[in-house]
């Protein structure tokens, strides 16, 4: 996932990760990798949500 990946795609990927973990069909190693990927996406998402400074610029 890149910085320009849409928010909805990031959310969808995390949802998929959660479903995979909830299915319980993953090894401990895979679960750890999925968790790390999800946390990275969520951290990235937090940065994405900080879009600007709320400035009002008269042109």
């Amino acid at each position: 996932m890149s910085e320009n990946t849409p928010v909805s795609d990031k959310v969808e990927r995390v949802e998929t990760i959660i479903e995979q973990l909830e299915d319980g069909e993953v090894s401990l190693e895979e679960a750890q990798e999925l968790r790390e990927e999800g946390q990275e996406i969520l951290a990235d998402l937090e940065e994405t949500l900080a879009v600007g400074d709320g400035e009002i610029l008269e042109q």
Partner: protein
Amino acid sequence: MANADVTTDAVAELDSDDVVTVATLNDEISEVIEDHPELEHDYVVGDASDCRESNGHLHFDLVFDSRSIHCVVFGVRHKSLNAVPDDEMHVAVRGELSYYEPQGSCSLIVEDVVNMGESEYSKIYAENKEKLAADGLLDDEQKQSLPELPATVGLVTSADSDARIDAVTAIHDRYPEVDIKIHDANVQGPTALQELISGVAAFDEDTTIDVIIITRGGGADKTLRTFNETPLCRVLANTDTPTAVGIGHEDDRTLADGVADFRFMTPTHAGEVVPKRADLERERTQLAERLDTAYQSAVEAKLTASETALDNAYESVVGSRLQELESSLVHAADRHTEAEILELRNQLETAYQTLEQEKEHEEQLEETVEEVRDEAKSEAEAKVARQQRRYKIAIAVLVLIVLGLAALYVIP
């Protein structure tokens, strides 16, 4: 014209003796209107616009060639009208010109309305709409999706309008961090079309802008007509940047609404072009919590499964080993028992044989004893017999001797 209702100080300060108040001016206008019968006409023709009811009276504007006059039909005359005007009607109005002094405004007090057909502007509107439709600019397929999270919004509106305040407030209420660039443009009047087009075009060239918004507050229908102009609509339809339009009130519809990628109802609804920051943050937090929960559940499930497997394996190994030991024990017990039995059997056999031998020996002994007894008996009997024979012989000898002696003595 000197006037007595202005203070002498004011007259002196202005260096003029022709100074009047609004009240005086309005009185004078009223007199002019009343004194000029040439202002009275049988009918005044124009397009009905902004028809509305208020306090039981029907109000509308009579518009022709960008000029208009307010008309009012008082409630008592409402039902007697030849035709009830609507916004698409070209009408002839019969009535009396009235000057309302408190506000300095002229109105036609309508006595009757005659429907003259479709309004001029309705024709123009229909033609514009037809042109845009013919080019496919009103088709939904032409519309772009709005960015789900715009970082910068380009707002084209009147800089000192309530619409600007409402739109900025609405956007920042939903997403405070969004930057807003504002292009000041008249939204009605002779320069509005060009200024609106310039604003949209400039923002479309600005690569930092993610969505362009045009908005203005409500107003008379005729003041919204700029937003039905095809040049503006074509510019809106052909931008590379997604566009959103919110003109007037909820029930106001313009062609600009139709060609824009997104329509919102009023400037207050301009915030709809951005998501709610709080919602996204809440969703992100919930995802983080769900991710942690799902991970912990997955790990716990996996550990529980491993623990169960370990227990099962241990029980299986121990059980198997115990079974082996039990089998060995049983076999050992069997073997021991069999050995014991065999030994006992052997002992029994030996004892039996010993017993048999002793029995046989005893029998032999008994036989020997019997034989010895028989032999002793025989010997005894033989001895007796011999003794008897000896006695018999002795007796016989004695007899013979007796006989011999008897014979010797008897036979003489």
